């Protein structure tokens, strides 16, 4: 859009001095050009909007296309097989799916309560002038690229856990019958637990910022009424705010879960990339995204590549479902709050 060139056309079209035939003709032409430009621009924006849809269908189609060889070879067994052997070209997705689910579960177990408590702090306890700076600081955590979490996790966090938390868990919970198997084995530093903890830090800002937003959207009349009855701050949050925003909080949790499931770089650094399912969460494992990131460029042979793309397809389907639920929940609360 160049105003300098367009302006005379607009002037001409609006001047209305169309009594002289030549001028009337020029005016009609100018109007036609504007009409054409209008239609072109409209169609252009429409095409771009449809392009976004095509983008998603393109992702799905290309992933399905790429994973066909592997799915044809292994069939449904791909999902439940524990083998992963590039030498014999035999692949199964179960260890990667297991690692993805367990690391994300650990992450949510920590991030959801902590995130909710921060939202409680920001909406009810924090002095007004501090709210924005703290909120921004927490959101900056979300802006830090995942590779930074990865390098930090590998060189600082994992050795720290190896020296402190992991021996502690092995010596205490590791001896408890029943759950002891979860904390068995030597402290590697890296592994499922470490990845889960890093993921927890990474998704914390998502939980916090969305729950804070829905907490803030609770009508103050409701809260004031509860305070007026003599409720403590905690009781207001627990009995008024949380029930009112339940759908939004679930949406936030699902959104964070979607992030955790698909997170690649941070996990790739600290997961250990071992294709096996261990009972212990201190042992190294792998996730779908870490497997792809680690092995894709080195994958020789069509079947190997195709098996990795199949993993990508599985990941995409899982995250798509989780994110769709998240969006649906958040849309519901938005409609309710208006």
């Amino acid at each position: 859009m160049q105003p300098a060139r367009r302006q005379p056309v607009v002037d001409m079209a609006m001047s209305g001095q169309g009594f002289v035939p030549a001028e009337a003709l020029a005016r009609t032409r100018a109007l036609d050009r504007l009409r054409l430009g209008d239609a072109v621009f409209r169609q252009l924006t429409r095409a771009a909007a449809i392009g976004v849809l095509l983008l998603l269908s393109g992702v799905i189609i290309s992933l399905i296309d790429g994973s066909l060889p592997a799915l044809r070879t292994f069939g449904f067994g791909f999902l439940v097989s524990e083998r992963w052997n590039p030498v014999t070209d035999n692949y199964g997705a179960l260890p990667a799916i297991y690692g993805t689910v367990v690391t994300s579960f650990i992450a949510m177990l920590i991030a959801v309560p902590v995130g909710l408590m921060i939202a409680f702090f920001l909406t009810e306890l924090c002095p007004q002038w501090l709210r924005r700076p703290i909120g921004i600081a927490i959101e900056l955590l979300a802006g830090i690229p995942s590779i930074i979490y990865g390098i930090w996790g590998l060189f600082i966090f994992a050795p720290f856990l190896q020296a402190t938390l992991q021996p502690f868990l092995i010596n205490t919970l590791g001896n408890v019958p029943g759950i002891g198997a979860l904390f068995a084995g030597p402290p590697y530093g890296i592994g499922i637990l470490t990845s889960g903890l890093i993921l927890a830090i990474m998704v914390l800002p998502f939980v916090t910022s969305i729950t804070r937003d829905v907490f803030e959207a609770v009508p103050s009349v409701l809260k004031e009424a509860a305070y007026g009855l003599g409720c403590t701050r905690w009781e207001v949050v627990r009995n008024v705010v949380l029930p009112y925003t339940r759908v939004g909080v679930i949406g936030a949790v699902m959104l964070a879960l979607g992030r955790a499931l698909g997170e690649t770089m941070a996990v790739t650094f600290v997961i250990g990339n071992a294709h096996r399912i261990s009972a212990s969460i201190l042992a190294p494992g792998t996730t779908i995204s870490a497997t792809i990131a680690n092995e894709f460029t080195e994958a020789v042979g069509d079947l190997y590549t195709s098996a990795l793309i199949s993993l990508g397809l599985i990941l995409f389907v899982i995250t798509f479902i989780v994110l769709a639920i998240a969006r649906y929940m958040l849309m519901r609360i938005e409609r309710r709050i208006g």
Partner: protein
Amino acid sequence: MPDKILASRYSGRRRNNAVATVLAFAATALGLGWLVLILGALLWKGFSGLSVAVFTEMTPPPGSTGGLLNPIVGSLILTTLAVLIGTPIGILAGTYMAEYGRYDRLSSVVRFINDILLSAPSIVVGLFIYEVMVAPLGHFSGYAGGVALAVIVIPVVVRTTEDMLTLVPNSLREAATSIGLPRSLAITHICYRAARAGMVTGVLLAVARISGETAPLLFTSLNNQFWSTNLNAPVSSLPVVIFQFALSPYKDWQSLAWTGALIITLAVLALSISARALIPSGRQS
């Protein structure tokens, strides 16, 4: 009810409140603590390696000194390419959703899909571009990397453009129409101008998002140890070099990785803070 029971119930409620308050303070301290810990580690580990050589020399072979010039330039090129491709598409799509079809079916579907693309795993985007660009052409290329990043830029720009255009008051549009301005010109000259700050914010946030993205680049633009601005060949990028160097056993590679990580983080933080500064307070998306 006897007073004693009432009193004990009351003190129980106060105790719960106190416990919750302490937990809330602790959670916030924990959240802020991680930020400080991560930034502190980055400064501590990365700052010592920061020198002029980092910005003027190529990535070294193991065991010798060097810098990060080629990955820095590569990252700048890829980011520029991604913004050039992604921004127009994103703005146009956002415009359709806010201006032409705010309430129609297409918009609500696109809105839903776009929100999913916004948080879709970026490694899947890498696989997608590998399938449609790298595999058919038979080689890794900077173009593929740029397009992969553009796929991540588009949803961010679509979202902010739509949000910001929706905030433009309708009276502005009506005024423009009443003086006979065609719809397209009203949008480009009036609405865009009113929403400019927010739209720029969207692009800045998108740049912040992609400047640290590693996963989509791993198998699209790959990496290049040498100076190369040929976009039809593999191009080096800062995140991929950090990935490679950090996981290597060589001390000087690892320290360069830390320095690179510091550079990226500072750039990303600067971008996201300036993006925030552009939006008036209390209206952040």
